[in-house]
Protein backbone atom coordinates (compact mmCIF):
# COMPACT_ATOMS: atom_id res chain seq x y z
CA UNK A 1 0.00 0.00 0.00
CA UNK A 2 1.28 3.45 -0.91
CA UNK A 3 1.81 5.36 2.30
CA UNK A 4 1.40 8.88 1.01
CA UNK A 5 -0.91 10.74 -1.38
CA UNK A 6 -0.02 12.34 -4.70
CA UNK A 7 -0.30 15.87 -3.39
CA UNK A 8 1.93 14.96 -0.46
CA UNK A 9 4.77 13.91 -2.78
CA UNK A 10 6.72 17.23 -2.91
CA UNK A 11 6.62 17.40 0.88
CA UNK A 12 7.71 13.78 1.20
CA UNK A 13 10.67 14.46 -1.09
CA UNK A 14 11.97 17.19 1.22
CA UNK A 15 11.32 14.95 4.21
CA UNK A 16 13.41 12.22 2.61
CA UNK A 17 16.23 14.69 2.02
CA UNK A 18 16.10 15.77 5.65
CA UNK A 19 16.27 12.12 6.72
CA UNK A 20 19.28 11.59 4.46
CA UNK A 21 21.08 14.61 5.91
CA UNK A 22 20.36 13.38 9.42
CA UNK A 23 22.00 10.12 8.44
CA UNK A 24 25.04 11.83 6.95
CA UNK A 25 25.18 14.09 9.99
CA UNK A 26 26.22 11.15 12.09
CA UNK A 27 29.66 11.25 10.47
CA UNK A 28 29.77 14.80 9.20
CA UNK A 29 28.01 17.21 11.57
CA UNK A 30 28.14 20.08 9.07
CA UNK A 31 25.44 18.30 7.03
CA UNK A 32 23.02 19.03 9.87
CA UNK A 33 23.26 22.78 9.28
CA UNK A 34 21.09 22.53 6.18
CA UNK A 35 18.23 20.89 8.01
CA UNK A 36 16.49 23.91 9.60
CA UNK A 37 16.33 25.64 6.24
CA UNK A 38 14.82 22.57 4.59
CA UNK A 39 12.38 22.15 7.43
CA UNK A 40 11.18 25.71 6.99
CA UNK A 41 10.83 25.15 3.27
CA UNK A 42 8.85 21.99 3.89
CA UNK A 43 6.47 23.75 6.26
CA UNK A 44 5.92 26.59 3.81
CA UNK A 45 5.20 24.17 1.03
CA UNK A 46 2.85 22.19 3.22
CA UNK A 47 1.00 25.30 4.29
CA UNK A 48 0.58 26.27 0.67
CA UNK A 49 -0.65 22.86 -0.47
CA UNK A 50 -3.03 22.44 2.46
CA UNK A 51 -4.49 25.92 2.12
CA UNK A 52 -6.16 24.96 -1.14
CA UNK A 53 -7.11 21.30 -0.84
CA UNK A 54 -10.11 20.23 -2.87
CA UNK A 55 -12.96 18.25 -1.25
CA UNK A 56 -11.68 15.13 -3.01
CA UNK A 57 -8.16 15.66 -1.67
CA UNK A 58 -9.62 16.14 1.81
CA UNK A 59 -11.54 12.87 1.35
CA UNK A 60 -8.24 11.17 0.51
CA UNK A 61 -6.66 12.64 3.64
CA UNK A 62 -9.62 11.41 5.68
CA UNK A 63 -8.88 7.91 4.36
CA UNK A 64 -5.08 8.22 4.56
CA UNK A 65 -3.50 4.83 5.29
CA UNK A 66 -1.38 6.42 8.00
CA UNK A 67 -4.20 8.41 9.57
CA UNK A 68 -4.69 7.62 13.27
CA UNK A 69 -7.78 5.56 14.02
CA UNK A 70 -9.99 4.85 17.01
CA UNK A 71 -7.51 2.48 18.64
CA UNK A 72 -4.75 5.11 18.38
CA UNK A 73 -6.87 7.82 19.95
CA UNK A 74 -7.99 5.49 22.72
CA UNK A 75 -4.32 5.12 23.71
CA UNK A 76 -3.57 8.82 23.25
CA UNK A 77 -6.60 10.32 24.97
CA UNK A 78 -7.72 8.10 27.84
CA UNK A 79 -5.90 7.30 31.06
CA UNK A 80 -7.24 3.77 31.21
CA UNK A 81 -9.20 1.55 28.86
CA UNK A 82 -10.88 -1.85 29.07
CA UNK A 83 -12.34 -3.22 25.88
CA UNK A 84 -15.72 -4.97 26.05
CA UNK A 85 -16.70 -7.48 23.40
CA UNK A 86 -19.75 -8.92 21.70
CA UNK A 87 -23.39 -8.09 21.10
CA UNK A 88 -24.70 -11.08 23.14
CA UNK A 89 -26.79 -12.05 20.13
CA UNK A 90 -24.52 -13.25 17.38
CA UNK A 91 -20.84 -12.30 17.56
CA UNK A 92 -18.10 -9.80 18.17
CA UNK A 93 -17.71 -7.39 15.29
CA UNK A 94 -14.12 -6.16 15.20
CA UNK A 95 -14.95 -3.18 13.00
CA UNK A 96 -16.45 -1.62 16.12
CA UNK A 97 -14.45 -1.08 19.31
CA UNK A 98 -16.33 -0.51 22.55
CA UNK A 99 -15.18 -0.19 26.13
CA UNK A 100 -14.78 1.58 29.44
CA UNK A 101 -12.31 4.42 29.68
CA UNK A 102 -11.16 7.18 31.97
CA UNK A 103 -11.10 10.80 30.82
CA UNK A 104 -9.65 13.35 33.26
CA UNK A 105 -10.51 11.04 36.11
CA UNK A 106 -14.13 10.36 35.17
CA UNK A 107 -15.34 7.04 33.73
CA UNK A 108 -16.77 7.25 30.25
CA UNK A 109 -17.95 4.84 27.58
CA UNK A 110 -16.02 4.81 24.31
CA UNK A 111 -17.37 3.50 21.01
CA UNK A 112 -15.65 3.75 17.65
CA UNK A 113 -15.23 2.26 14.20
CA UNK A 114 -11.84 0.66 13.61
CA UNK A 115 -10.50 0.29 10.08
CA UNK A 116 -7.28 -1.45 11.10
CA UNK A 117 -3.68 -0.85 10.02
CA UNK A 118 -1.92 -2.83 7.29
CA UNK A 119 -3.52 -5.39 5.00
CA UNK A 120 -4.03 -8.27 7.45
CA UNK A 121 -5.31 -6.09 10.23
CA UNK A 122 -7.68 -4.31 7.89
CA UNK A 123 -9.24 -7.60 6.91
CA UNK A 124 -9.68 -8.52 10.59
CA UNK A 125 -11.45 -5.19 11.13
CA UNK A 126 -13.34 -5.50 7.84
CA UNK A 127 -12.04 -2.05 6.79
CA UNK A 128 -14.27 -0.44 9.38
CA UNK A 129 -17.48 -1.70 7.78
CA UNK A 130 -19.76 -3.13 10.43
CA UNK A 131 -22.28 -5.93 10.28
CA UNK A 132 -25.46 -5.66 12.38
CA UNK A 133 -23.63 -7.16 15.37
CA UNK A 134 -21.25 -4.17 15.36
CA UNK A 135 -24.11 -1.71 15.77
CA UNK A 136 -25.78 -4.01 18.29
CA UNK A 137 -22.58 -4.23 20.33
CA UNK A 138 -22.45 -0.43 20.32
CA UNK A 139 -26.10 -0.37 21.41
CA UNK A 140 -25.46 -2.78 24.27
CA UNK A 141 -22.61 -0.64 25.54
CA UNK A 142 -24.67 2.54 25.20
CA UNK A 143 -27.36 0.96 27.35
CA UNK A 144 -24.67 0.17 29.91
CA UNK A 145 -23.68 3.84 29.84
CA UNK A 146 -27.30 4.83 30.40
CA UNK A 147 -27.73 2.45 33.34
CA UNK A 148 -24.63 3.75 35.13
CA UNK A 149 -24.93 7.34 33.99
CA UNK A 150 -21.65 7.54 32.04
CA UNK A 151 -21.00 9.99 29.20
CA UNK A 152 -20.56 8.42 25.75
CA UNK A 153 -17.74 9.39 23.39
CA UNK A 154 -17.89 7.98 19.86
CA UNK A 155 -15.24 8.03 17.15
CA UNK A 156 -16.62 7.87 13.63
CA UNK A 157 -14.42 6.34 10.92
CA UNK A 158 -16.13 4.06 8.42
CA UNK A 159 -16.72 3.81 4.67
CA UNK A 160 -20.24 2.65 5.58
CA UNK A 161 -22.20 -0.35 6.78
CA UNK A 162 -21.08 -3.59 5.15
CA UNK A 163 -23.17 -4.54 2.09
CA UNK A 164 -23.41 -8.33 2.26
CA UNK A 165 -25.83 -11.23 2.29
CA UNK A 166 -25.36 -12.10 5.97
CA UNK A 167 -25.58 -8.44 6.95
CA UNK A 168 -28.99 -8.30 5.26
CA UNK A 169 -30.12 -11.61 6.76
CA UNK A 170 -29.31 -10.40 10.23
CA UNK A 171 -31.07 -7.05 9.75
CA UNK A 172 -28.53 -4.39 8.82
CA UNK A 173 -31.22 -1.73 8.44
CA UNK A 174 -32.97 -2.61 11.69
CA UNK A 175 -29.66 -2.50 13.57
CA UNK A 176 -28.87 1.00 12.31
CA UNK A 177 -32.42 2.27 12.78
CA UNK A 178 -32.54 0.97 16.35
CA UNK A 179 -29.36 2.85 17.25
CA UNK A 180 -30.81 6.10 15.90
CA UNK A 181 -33.94 5.49 17.97
CA UNK A 182 -32.10 4.69 21.19
CA UNK A 183 -29.41 7.37 20.89
CA UNK A 184 -32.09 10.03 20.51
CA UNK A 185 -33.55 8.95 23.87
CA UNK A 186 -30.48 8.32 26.04
CA UNK A 187 -30.23 10.70 28.98
CA UNK A 188 -26.42 10.67 29.25
CA UNK A 189 -24.20 13.16 27.37
CA UNK A 190 -23.15 11.95 23.92
CA UNK A 191 -20.26 13.42 21.94
CA UNK A 192 -19.49 12.17 18.45
CA UNK A 193 -16.11 12.91 16.90
CA UNK A 194 -15.64 12.26 13.19
CA UNK A 195 -11.96 11.35 13.01
CA UNK A 196 -11.72 10.16 9.40
CA UNK A 197 -14.44 8.98 7.08
CA UNK A 198 -18.11 9.30 8.02
CA UNK A 199 -19.84 7.07 5.49
CA UNK A 200 -23.65 7.18 5.37
CA UNK A 201 -25.91 5.11 7.65
CA UNK A 202 -23.02 3.15 9.13
CA UNK A 203 -21.51 6.41 10.40
CA UNK A 204 -24.81 7.84 11.56
CA UNK A 205 -25.48 4.71 13.65
CA UNK A 206 -23.02 5.99 16.27
CA UNK A 207 -23.25 9.73 15.70
CA UNK A 208 -26.60 10.86 17.05
CA UNK A 209 -25.20 13.19 19.69
CA UNK A 210 -25.52 16.34 21.79
CA UNK A 211 -22.37 17.64 20.17
CA UNK A 212 -20.98 16.45 16.90
CA UNK A 213 -17.41 17.43 16.08
CA UNK A 214 -15.23 16.87 13.05
CA UNK A 215 -11.48 16.88 12.64
CA UNK A 216 -10.40 19.45 10.09
CA UNK A 217 -9.66 16.90 7.35
CA UNK A 218 -12.43 14.41 8.05
CA UNK A 219 -15.49 13.98 5.85
CA UNK A 220 -19.10 12.99 6.49
CA UNK A 221 -21.48 12.14 3.70
CA UNK A 222 -24.67 10.45 2.60
CA UNK A 223 -22.72 8.51 -0.02
CA UNK A 224 -19.07 8.14 -1.05
CA UNK A 225 -17.91 10.33 -3.95
CA UNK A 226 -17.25 7.09 -5.89
CA UNK A 227 -20.78 5.79 -5.32
CA UNK A 228 -22.30 9.15 -6.13
CA UNK A 229 -20.33 9.49 -9.38
CA UNK A 230 -21.36 5.98 -10.46
CA UNK A 231 -25.04 6.50 -9.72
CA UNK A 232 -25.74 10.13 -10.60
CA UNK A 233 -23.18 10.70 -13.35
CA UNK A 234 -23.04 7.11 -14.51
CA UNK A 235 -19.32 7.83 -14.79
CA UNK A 236 -16.79 6.69 -12.19
CA UNK A 237 -14.35 9.34 -13.42
CA UNK A 238 -16.49 12.12 -11.96
CA UNK A 239 -15.32 11.45 -8.39
CA UNK A 240 -13.86 14.88 -7.90
CA UNK A 241 -17.05 16.62 -9.08
CA UNK A 242 -19.12 14.37 -6.85
CA UNK A 243 -16.92 15.15 -3.82
CA UNK A 244 -17.34 18.84 -4.58
CA UNK A 245 -21.12 18.61 -5.01
CA UNK A 246 -21.79 16.55 -1.91
CA UNK A 247 -20.46 19.23 0.48
CA UNK A 248 -18.86 16.69 2.76
CA UNK A 249 -16.01 18.57 4.45
CA UNK A 250 -15.98 19.76 8.06
CA UNK A 251 -16.37 23.37 6.91
CA UNK A 252 -19.41 22.42 4.81
CA UNK A 253 -21.08 20.58 7.67
CA UNK A 254 -20.49 23.47 10.03
CA UNK A 255 -22.06 25.85 7.49
CA UNK A 256 -25.01 23.48 6.99
CA UNK A 257 -25.64 23.42 10.74
CA UNK A 258 -24.97 19.70 11.10
CA UNK A 259 -21.95 19.89 13.44
CA UNK A 260 -21.05 22.10 16.40
CA UNK A 261 -17.29 22.42 15.99
CA UNK A 262 -14.20 21.68 13.93
CA UNK A 263 -11.06 20.42 15.68
CA UNK A 264 -8.01 21.79 13.80
CA UNK A 265 -5.34 19.30 12.73
CA UNK A 266 -1.55 19.61 12.97
CA UNK A 267 0.19 20.85 9.83
CA UNK A 268 -0.01 18.16 7.15
CA UNK A 269 -2.88 16.36 8.87
CA UNK A 270 -3.40 14.16 11.92
CA UNK A 271 -0.92 11.55 10.69
CA UNK A 272 2.00 14.03 10.91
CA UNK A 273 1.55 14.38 14.64
CA UNK A 274 -0.90 11.89 16.19
CA UNK A 275 0.14 12.85 19.71
CA UNK A 276 -0.68 16.51 19.12
CA UNK A 277 -3.97 15.49 17.48
CA UNK A 278 -4.83 13.36 20.49
CA UNK A 279 -4.18 16.32 22.79
CA UNK A 280 -6.37 18.60 20.70
CA UNK A 281 -9.24 16.10 20.71
CA UNK A 282 -8.81 15.45 24.41
CA UNK A 283 -8.91 19.13 25.29
CA UNK A 284 -12.06 19.68 23.24
CA UNK A 285 -14.03 16.69 24.45
CA UNK A 286 -13.11 17.34 28.12
CA UNK A 287 -14.52 20.83 27.81
CA UNK A 288 -17.64 19.59 26.01
CA UNK A 289 -18.35 16.76 28.47
CA UNK A 290 -18.03 19.15 31.42
CA UNK A 291 -20.43 21.59 29.80
CA UNK A 292 -22.95 18.88 28.91
CA UNK A 293 -22.86 17.43 32.42
CA UNK A 294 -24.23 20.71 33.78
CA UNK A 295 -27.45 20.30 31.79
CA UNK A 296 -30.23 18.29 33.52
CA UNK A 297 -30.77 14.91 31.75
CA UNK A 298 -34.32 15.63 30.55
CA UNK A 299 -33.25 18.96 29.16
CA UNK A 300 -30.35 17.28 27.40
CA UNK A 301 -32.67 14.83 25.64
CA UNK A 302 -34.93 17.69 24.66
CA UNK A 303 -32.05 19.72 23.29
CA UNK A 304 -30.74 16.70 21.37
CA UNK A 305 -34.13 16.35 19.71
CA UNK A 306 -34.30 20.06 18.89
CA UNK A 307 -30.79 19.86 17.47
CA UNK A 308 -31.89 17.21 14.93
CA UNK A 309 -35.28 18.84 14.48
CA UNK A 310 -33.68 21.95 12.95
CA UNK A 311 -31.68 20.13 10.28
CA UNK A 312 -33.05 20.39 6.75
CA UNK A 313 -33.88 22.91 4.06
CA UNK A 314 -37.40 23.49 2.75
CA UNK A 315 -39.84 26.23 1.94
CA UNK A 316 -43.33 26.76 3.19
CA UNK A 317 -45.89 29.47 2.46
CA UNK A 318 -46.23 31.85 5.41
CA UNK A 319 -49.79 30.86 6.30
CA UNK A 320 -49.78 27.23 5.38
CA UNK A 321 -53.12 25.65 6.22
CA UNK A 322 -52.94 22.01 7.16
Amino acid sequence: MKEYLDFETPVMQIQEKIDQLKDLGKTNSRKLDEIPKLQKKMEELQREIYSKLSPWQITQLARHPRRPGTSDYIKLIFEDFVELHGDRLYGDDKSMITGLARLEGRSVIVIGHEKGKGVKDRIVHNFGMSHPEGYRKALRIMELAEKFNKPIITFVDTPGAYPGVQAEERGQSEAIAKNLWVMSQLSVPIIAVVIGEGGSGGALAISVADQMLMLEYSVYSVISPEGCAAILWDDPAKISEAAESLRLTAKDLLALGVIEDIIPEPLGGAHYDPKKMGELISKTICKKVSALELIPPEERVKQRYERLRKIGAYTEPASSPS
Partner: protein
Amino acid sequence: MPWFKKERHLLTDPRKVKFPEGLWVKCNNCRGIIYRKELVRSDKVCPKCDYHFPISVNERISMIADEGSFHEWNADLSPKDPLKFKDTMRYADRLVKNKEKTGYPDALVIGGAKMNCQPLALAILNFSFMAGSMGSVVGEKLTRGLERAKDEKIPFVLFSASGGARMQEGVLSLMQMAKTSAAVARFQSEKGLFISVLTDPTFGGVTASFAMLGDIIIAEPKSLIGFAGPRVIQQTIKTQLPKGFQRAEFLLEHGMIDMIVERKSMRDTLIQLLSFF
Protein backbone atom coordinates in the same frame (compact mmCIF):
# COMPACT_ATOMS: atom_id res chain seq x y z
CA MET B 1 -25.90 5.91 -0.16
CA PRO B 2 -24.59 3.47 -2.71
CA TRP B 3 -27.56 1.17 -2.87
CA PHE B 4 -27.59 0.74 -6.61
CA LYS B 5 -25.33 1.18 -9.52
CA LYS B 6 -26.52 2.24 -12.87
CA GLU B 7 -25.44 -0.64 -15.06
CA ARG B 8 -27.84 -2.65 -17.13
CA HIS B 9 -28.04 -5.98 -15.42
CA LEU B 10 -30.39 -8.90 -15.02
CA LEU B 11 -30.93 -8.10 -11.37
CA THR B 12 -33.90 -5.95 -10.55
CA ASP B 13 -32.82 -2.40 -9.98
CA PRO B 14 -35.12 -1.08 -7.27
CA ARG B 15 -34.85 2.45 -8.60
CA LYS B 16 -36.29 1.37 -11.91
CA VAL B 17 -39.27 -0.49 -10.58
CA LYS B 18 -42.41 1.02 -12.03
CA PHE B 19 -45.81 0.31 -13.35
CA PRO B 20 -45.11 0.12 -17.06
CA GLU B 21 -47.10 1.68 -19.87
CA GLY B 22 -48.65 -0.21 -22.75
CA LEU B 23 -51.19 -2.94 -23.47
CA TRP B 24 -49.02 -5.73 -22.14
CA VAL B 25 -47.01 -5.51 -18.97
CA LYS B 26 -43.94 -7.44 -17.89
CA CYS B 27 -43.86 -8.53 -14.26
CA ASN B 28 -40.93 -7.08 -12.25
CA ASN B 29 -40.62 -10.37 -10.36
CA CYS B 30 -41.47 -13.41 -12.54
CA ARG B 31 -40.92 -11.61 -15.87
CA GLY B 32 -44.25 -13.02 -17.05
CA ILE B 33 -46.28 -11.06 -19.60
CA ILE B 34 -49.65 -9.91 -18.31
CA TYR B 35 -52.58 -8.29 -20.07
CA ARG B 36 -52.80 -4.78 -18.70
CA LYS B 37 -56.56 -4.79 -18.11
CA GLU B 38 -56.27 -7.97 -16.11
CA LEU B 39 -53.60 -6.37 -13.95
CA VAL B 40 -55.73 -3.31 -13.26
CA ARG B 41 -58.67 -5.54 -12.28
CA SER B 42 -56.48 -7.37 -9.78
CA ASP B 43 -55.34 -4.22 -7.90
CA LYS B 44 -52.07 -4.39 -9.85
CA VAL B 45 -51.09 -7.77 -8.50
CA CYS B 46 -49.43 -10.25 -10.86
CA PRO B 47 -51.83 -13.17 -11.41
CA LYS B 48 -48.89 -15.50 -12.11
CA CYS B 49 -46.63 -14.89 -9.09
CA ASP B 50 -48.52 -12.58 -6.73
CA TYR B 51 -45.97 -9.78 -7.13
CA HIS B 52 -47.49 -6.46 -6.06
CA PHE B 53 -46.77 -3.70 -8.55
CA PRO B 54 -46.28 -0.15 -7.24
CA ILE B 55 -49.50 1.86 -7.13
CA SER B 56 -50.14 5.59 -7.01
CA VAL B 57 -50.70 7.59 -3.85
CA ASN B 58 -54.37 8.09 -4.71
CA GLU B 59 -54.89 4.40 -5.39
CA ARG B 60 -53.32 3.61 -2.04
CA ILE B 61 -55.46 6.13 -0.18
CA SER B 62 -58.65 4.85 -1.75
CA MET B 63 -57.70 1.24 -0.91
CA ILE B 64 -56.93 2.03 2.74
CA ALA B 65 -58.90 5.02 4.01
CA ASP B 66 -62.66 5.44 4.42
CA GLU B 67 -63.99 7.17 1.36
CA GLY B 68 -63.35 10.92 1.39
CA SER B 69 -61.78 10.81 4.86
CA PHE B 70 -58.23 11.71 3.88
CA HIS B 71 -57.15 15.33 4.34
CA GLU B 72 -53.56 16.19 3.62
CA TRP B 73 -51.20 17.86 6.12
CA ASN B 74 -48.44 20.31 5.14
CA ALA B 75 -49.21 19.85 1.47
CA ASP B 76 -47.31 23.03 0.57
CA LEU B 77 -44.02 22.09 2.19
CA SER B 78 -41.59 22.22 -0.73
CA PRO B 79 -37.98 21.30 -1.35
CA LYS B 80 -35.09 23.72 -1.74
CA ASP B 81 -31.76 23.10 -3.37
CA PRO B 82 -29.50 23.73 -0.38
CA LEU B 83 -26.29 22.43 -1.98
CA LYS B 84 -26.97 23.90 -5.45
CA PHE B 85 -26.45 20.35 -6.58
CA LYS B 86 -25.84 19.51 -10.18
CA ASP B 87 -25.03 16.14 -11.68
CA THR B 88 -26.13 15.41 -15.22
CA MET B 89 -29.02 17.73 -14.44
CA ARG B 90 -29.52 20.48 -11.87
CA TYR B 91 -31.36 19.26 -8.78
CA ALA B 92 -33.61 22.32 -9.03
CA ASP B 93 -34.64 21.23 -12.54
CA ARG B 94 -35.11 17.65 -11.43
CA LEU B 95 -37.50 18.86 -8.76
CA VAL B 96 -39.55 20.83 -11.27
CA LYS B 97 -39.68 17.85 -13.60
CA ASN B 98 -40.81 15.50 -10.86
CA LYS B 99 -43.44 17.95 -9.66
CA GLU B 100 -44.83 18.15 -13.16
CA LYS B 101 -44.77 14.38 -13.48
CA THR B 102 -46.45 13.56 -10.17
CA GLY B 103 -48.40 16.68 -9.25
CA TYR B 104 -46.71 16.72 -5.84
CA PRO B 105 -43.88 18.98 -4.59
CA ASP B 106 -41.97 16.08 -3.01
CA ALA B 107 -42.06 12.35 -2.26
CA LEU B 108 -44.18 12.10 0.90
CA VAL B 109 -47.92 12.52 1.15
CA ILE B 110 -49.26 12.56 4.69
CA GLY B 111 -52.53 13.41 6.34
CA GLY B 112 -55.33 12.53 8.68
CA ALA B 113 -57.72 9.78 7.62
CA LYS B 114 -60.25 7.35 8.96
CA MET B 115 -60.36 3.60 8.75
CA ASN B 116 -63.66 2.07 9.72
CA CYS B 117 -64.46 5.49 11.28
CA GLN B 118 -61.33 5.39 13.49
CA PRO B 119 -58.93 8.31 13.05
CA LEU B 120 -55.31 7.72 12.11
CA ALA B 121 -52.33 9.43 10.50
CA LEU B 122 -51.63 7.98 7.07
CA ALA B 123 -48.31 8.55 5.31
CA ILE B 124 -47.35 7.32 1.85
CA LEU B 125 -43.99 7.53 0.16
CA ASN B 126 -44.43 8.22 -3.52
CA PHE B 127 -41.95 6.14 -5.52
CA SER B 128 -42.78 8.10 -8.68
CA PHE B 129 -41.15 11.19 -7.18
CA MET B 130 -37.38 10.72 -7.41
CA ALA B 131 -37.65 7.06 -6.38
CA GLY B 132 -39.38 8.00 -3.13
CA SER B 133 -36.05 9.27 -1.82
CA MET B 134 -35.88 11.05 1.52
CA GLY B 135 -34.63 14.61 1.58
CA SER B 136 -35.48 17.46 3.93
CA VAL B 137 -39.14 17.66 2.95
CA VAL B 138 -39.84 13.96 3.51
CA GLY B 139 -38.01 14.15 6.84
CA GLU B 140 -39.80 17.29 7.98
CA LYS B 141 -43.29 16.17 6.94
CA LEU B 142 -42.85 12.80 8.56
CA THR B 143 -41.53 14.39 11.77
CA ARG B 144 -44.41 16.87 11.92
CA GLY B 145 -46.87 14.07 11.21
CA LEU B 146 -45.47 11.96 14.05
CA GLU B 147 -45.57 14.94 16.41
CA ARG B 148 -49.17 15.63 15.45
CA ALA B 149 -50.19 11.97 15.82
CA LYS B 150 -48.56 12.04 19.27
CA ASP B 151 -50.56 15.12 20.30
CA GLU B 152 -53.80 13.79 18.84
CA LYS B 153 -53.12 10.33 20.28
CA ILE B 154 -53.89 8.57 17.02
CA PRO B 155 -52.08 5.63 15.42
CA PHE B 156 -49.59 6.20 12.62
CA VAL B 157 -49.67 4.02 9.49
CA LEU B 158 -46.95 4.40 6.88
CA PHE B 159 -46.54 2.88 3.43
CA SER B 160 -42.93 2.96 2.24
CA ALA B 161 -41.43 2.67 -1.23
CA SER B 162 -38.05 4.28 -1.57
CA GLY B 163 -34.56 4.02 -2.98
CA GLY B 164 -33.18 5.57 0.23
CA ALA B 165 -31.71 8.93 1.12
CA ARG B 166 -31.73 11.66 -1.52
CA MET B 167 -28.13 12.17 -2.61
CA GLN B 168 -28.83 15.61 -4.05
CA GLU B 169 -29.35 16.99 -0.55
CA GLY B 170 -26.13 15.43 0.72
CA VAL B 171 -25.65 15.18 4.46
CA LEU B 172 -28.95 16.97 5.08
CA SER B 173 -30.80 13.92 3.75
CA LEU B 174 -28.61 11.59 5.82
CA MET B 175 -29.54 13.55 8.93
CA GLN B 176 -33.25 13.11 8.16
CA MET B 177 -32.75 9.47 9.12
CA ALA B 178 -31.77 10.56 12.61
CA LYS B 179 -34.47 13.20 12.77
CA THR B 180 -37.32 10.88 11.74
CA SER B 181 -36.07 8.06 13.99
CA ALA B 182 -36.00 10.48 16.91
CA ALA B 183 -39.56 11.50 16.09
CA VAL B 184 -40.63 7.83 15.96
CA ALA B 185 -38.92 7.31 19.35
CA ARG B 186 -40.83 10.20 20.90
CA PHE B 187 -44.12 9.02 19.43
CA GLN B 188 -43.64 5.43 20.57
CA SER B 189 -42.40 6.48 24.01
CA GLU B 190 -45.77 8.17 24.49
CA LYS B 191 -47.44 4.86 23.62
CA GLY B 192 -48.21 5.84 20.05
CA LEU B 193 -48.78 2.86 17.77
CA PHE B 194 -46.75 2.86 14.57
CA ILE B 195 -47.54 0.35 11.85
CA SER B 196 -44.99 0.31 9.03
CA VAL B 197 -45.95 -1.25 5.71
CA LEU B 198 -43.07 -1.98 3.34
CA THR B 199 -43.87 -2.12 -0.35
CA ASP B 200 -41.77 -2.76 -3.41
CA PRO B 201 -39.06 -1.51 -3.26
CA THR B 202 -37.87 -0.10 0.10
CA PHE B 203 -34.15 0.45 0.67
CA GLY B 204 -31.30 2.34 2.24
CA GLY B 205 -31.86 5.35 4.39
CA VAL B 206 -35.57 4.62 4.64
CA THR B 207 -35.26 1.03 5.91
CA ALA B 208 -32.30 2.05 8.08
CA SER B 209 -34.49 4.57 9.88
CA PHE B 210 -38.25 4.89 10.37
CA ALA B 211 -39.46 2.07 8.12
CA MET B 212 -37.87 -0.68 10.26
CA LEU B 213 -39.00 0.94 13.52
CA GLY B 214 -42.67 0.01 13.32
CA ASP B 215 -44.26 -1.60 16.38
CA ILE B 216 -45.70 -3.87 13.75
CA ILE B 217 -44.03 -4.29 10.37
CA ILE B 218 -45.97 -5.58 7.38
CA ALA B 219 -44.78 -6.18 3.82
CA GLU B 220 -46.59 -6.69 0.56
CA PRO B 221 -45.83 -10.05 -1.11
CA LYS B 222 -42.59 -10.32 -3.11
CA SER B 223 -41.53 -6.77 -2.26
CA LEU B 224 -37.81 -6.12 -2.49
CA ILE B 225 -36.65 -4.77 0.88
CA GLY B 226 -33.16 -4.23 2.23
CA PHE B 227 -30.38 -1.95 3.32
CA ALA B 228 -27.89 -2.22 0.46
CA GLY B 229 -29.16 -2.74 -3.08
CA PRO B 230 -28.68 -6.21 -4.59
CA ARG B 231 -26.31 -4.84 -7.21
CA VAL B 232 -23.93 -3.31 -4.67
CA ILE B 233 -23.98 -6.50 -2.64
CA GLN B 234 -23.23 -8.61 -5.67
CA GLN B 235 -20.36 -6.34 -6.65
CA THR B 236 -18.96 -6.63 -3.13
CA ILE B 237 -19.24 -10.39 -2.60
CA LYS B 238 -18.82 -11.39 -6.26
CA THR B 239 -20.96 -14.52 -6.02
CA GLN B 240 -24.57 -15.29 -6.88
CA LEU B 241 -27.16 -13.95 -4.48
CA PRO B 242 -29.44 -16.56 -2.88
CA LYS B 243 -32.80 -17.14 -4.52
CA GLY B 244 -35.50 -14.80 -3.25
CA PHE B 245 -32.86 -12.62 -1.59
CA GLN B 246 -34.32 -9.44 -0.03
CA ARG B 247 -37.87 -10.34 -0.97
CA ALA B 248 -40.57 -9.92 1.69
CA GLU B 249 -40.69 -13.72 2.18
CA PHE B 250 -36.94 -13.72 2.87
CA LEU B 251 -37.36 -11.04 5.52
CA LEU B 252 -40.22 -12.91 7.16
CA GLU B 253 -38.13 -16.06 7.31
CA HIS B 254 -35.26 -14.15 8.93
CA GLY B 255 -37.48 -12.60 11.55
CA MET B 256 -37.33 -9.05 10.27
CA ILE B 257 -41.05 -8.44 9.71
CA ASP B 258 -44.28 -9.57 11.40
CA MET B 259 -46.31 -10.60 8.40
CA ILE B 260 -46.88 -10.47 4.68
CA VAL B 261 -50.26 -9.14 3.70
CA GLU B 262 -51.90 -9.17 0.28
CA ARG B 263 -53.04 -5.87 -1.08
CA LYS B 264 -56.67 -6.97 -1.21
CA SER B 265 -56.73 -7.71 2.53
CA MET B 266 -54.48 -4.84 3.66
CA ARG B 267 -57.27 -2.56 4.87
CA ASP B 268 -59.06 -5.32 6.78
CA THR B 269 -55.80 -6.44 8.36
CA LEU B 270 -54.95 -2.90 9.48
CA ILE B 271 -58.45 -2.45 10.94
CA GLN B 272 -58.11 -5.76 12.75
CA LEU B 273 -54.68 -4.87 14.11
CA LEU B 274 -55.76 -1.43 15.32
CA SER B 275 -58.73 -3.00 17.12
CA PHE B 276 -56.33 -4.64 19.60
CA PHE B 277 -54.88 -1.36 20.84
